[in-house]
């Protein structure tokens, strides 16, 4: 089956060239064929998707104007609240949780006539870099089933790579959209903090979390961003239109940037694989060939980003996850004999290892006697990192880096070594700490035929420029056309 881009599907459906119901059935039959191998979904809404497709077809044949995502099958990460199905966060704690409301992004997708086809697997509560921390499901990399899909939005990236939806939403707290996009050879965009409403996104690190699109192409990401971006009264950290107006991100997507200046960070790729370094250098050459100027920049504090992040993110997580008390919603231990044990046992039995570890680390960093040494220190380092970006963006339009030091690693390789797993986020974390947007696009294959991603970072609220820069590369290379060969195909 030829894999159509999201934009193609949308255009063909809107033009009446294909029926939504036919296309949705096609995707569902592909899911039937390969999903048992890939494992990208926690929940698939087959019947509901077909019903909804029929409604959209009716709307179109009645001559009504279809929405921006008319008939397009979209998957969403299972940490975004939906009134249909469960919202599990891939946790035993929320395995049966049914949200009483939809996340704002879900409302926006529905208003744009998207067909929500399922909810994707993830690391429990979005904590992890391989999706191995899911308590409900195992997801593999469609390019090589012995490898991880990356994480935490591993299901969202694997579903797009395997052609099991036209595009998906992920969430990115320290790289959770960009790193799995890189591992699965698709496009992943983390918008600026505040660009997309977080209302209805189950909170992990509230000052870092951001929802964004995972797609096959840069233009697809622009189209999805058009739908989900914007101020939301229900999220006090989403920015007002007057402060940072949203653009039509598709409008100028094919226009290259004149006089583009690209920054590369001196001595930043020492720890990366040879293939990853080579691919980055080749990408820089592509941009040079398109007339871009390359400047070397110094960002002396990037080296401290992982350390600061794992204090800030876990501190926020320990506070956010205090709400799981075995009383209001979620899992309650049947073994609790008094009210204290309702808390301690429900949480012990409901949370997996990594979630417990992060709650513990965050609680430690915030506890009396350690607050200044860890939490306060991390906030100061965070400021230094932001200042590094401010200075750097005075010299260039964007920064290009690897997305991760390696390509998709073997399942099981890092799971017993949390610190090693954390260090795989070294290139993606700085953008979350600084709140700036970043995109991952495919820029190569390694010696094992696994995708290598290229990360582009740009100043806050410059998604328009960021997408155009990414599109320049995509338009002049063929990497985005390489697709995995799934064994059950």
């Amino acid at each position, binding site marked *: 089956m030829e894999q159509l881009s999201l934009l193609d599907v949308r255009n063909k459906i809107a033009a009446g060239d294909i029926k939504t119901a036919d296309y949705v059935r096609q995707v569902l039959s592909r899911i039937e064929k390969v999903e048992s191998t890939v494992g990208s979904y926690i929940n698939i809404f087959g019947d509901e998707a077909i019903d909804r497709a029929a409604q959209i077809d009716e709307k179109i044949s009645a001559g009504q104007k279809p929405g921006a995502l008319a008939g397009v099958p979209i998957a969403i990460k299972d940490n975004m609240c939906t009134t249909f199905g469960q919202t599990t966060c891939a946790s035993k704690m929320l395995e*049966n*949780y*049914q949200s*009483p*409301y939809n996340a704002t992004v879900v409302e926006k997708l529905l208003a744009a006539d998207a067909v929500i086809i399922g909810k994707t697997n993830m690391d429990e509560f979005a904590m992890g870099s391989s999706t191995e921390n899911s308590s409900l499901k195992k997801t593999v990399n469609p390019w090589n089933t012995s490898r991880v899909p990356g994480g935490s939005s591993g299901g969202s990236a694997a579903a797009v790579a395997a052609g099991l939806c036209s595009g998906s939403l992920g969430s990115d707290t320290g790289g959770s959209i960009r790193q799995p996009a890189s591992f699965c050879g698709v496009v992943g965009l983390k918008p600026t903090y*505040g660009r997309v409403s977080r209302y209805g996104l189950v909170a992990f690190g509230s*000052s870092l979390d951001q929802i964004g699109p995972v797609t096959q192409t840069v233009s697809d990401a622009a189209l999805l961003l058009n739908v989900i971006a914007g101020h939301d009264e229900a999220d*006090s*950290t989403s*920015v007002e239109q007057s402060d940072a107006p949203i653009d039509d991100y598709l409008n100028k997507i094919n226009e290259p940037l004149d006089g583009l200046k690209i920054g590369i960070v001196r001595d930043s790729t020492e720890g990366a694989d040879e293939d990853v370094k080579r691919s980055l250098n080749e990408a820089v050459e592509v941009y040079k060939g398109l007339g871009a100027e390359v400047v070397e920049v110094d960002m002396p*504090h990037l*080296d*401290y980003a992982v*350390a*600061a992040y*794992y*204090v800030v993110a876990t501190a926020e997580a320990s506070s956010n996850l*205090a709400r799981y*008390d075995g*009383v*209001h*919603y*979620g*899992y*309650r231990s049947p073994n*609790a004999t*008094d*009210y*204290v*044990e309702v*808390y*301690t*046992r429900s*949480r*012990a039995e409901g*949370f997996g290892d990594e979630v*417990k*570890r992060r*709650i*513990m*680390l965050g*609680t*430690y960093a915030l*506890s009396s006697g350690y607050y200044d040494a*860890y939490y306060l*220190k*991390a*906030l*100061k*380092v*965070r*400021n*230094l990192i*932001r200042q590094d970006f401010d200075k750097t963006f005075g010299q260039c339009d964007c920064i290009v880096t690897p997305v991760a030091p390696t390509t998709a690693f073997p399942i099981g390789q890092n799971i017993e070594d*949390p*610190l090693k797993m*954390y260090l795989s986020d070294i290139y993606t974390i700085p953008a979350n700490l*600084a*709140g700036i947007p970043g995109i991952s696009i495919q820029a190569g294959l390694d010696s094992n035929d696994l995708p290598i991603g290229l990360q582009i970072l740009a100043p*806050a609220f410059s998604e328009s420029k960021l997408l155009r820069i990414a599109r320049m590369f995509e338009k002049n290379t063929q990497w985005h056309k390489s697709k995995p060969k799934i064994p059950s195909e």
Partner: protein
Amino acid sequence: MSKKIDAQQVKKVAMLSRLDLSDAEIERFASQLSEIVTYVEKMNELDTEKVEPMAHCLGITNRFGEDRPAESLGTEKALANAPDHDGQFFIVPRILEENSA
């Protein structure tokens, strides 16, 4: 080598976190958290005495909304996911002893 975080500290943090950990978990977390905290202390290489802490990248403070009534969730929906309830209240095990009233 003495651990940065020992079993005693893990127990204390587990109590603060309301997590009931097994002895094996306590041992494992002590060594894993020690390793992570040791790594995190790399931040001490930086002199941050004159740096302002940054809790948030947008630099926003309080946002005030209009004070206007809106629909709320309602009892039924609010209780729908509760592990135990009586249609009006969440039910939890007894908090006060029988004779302490």
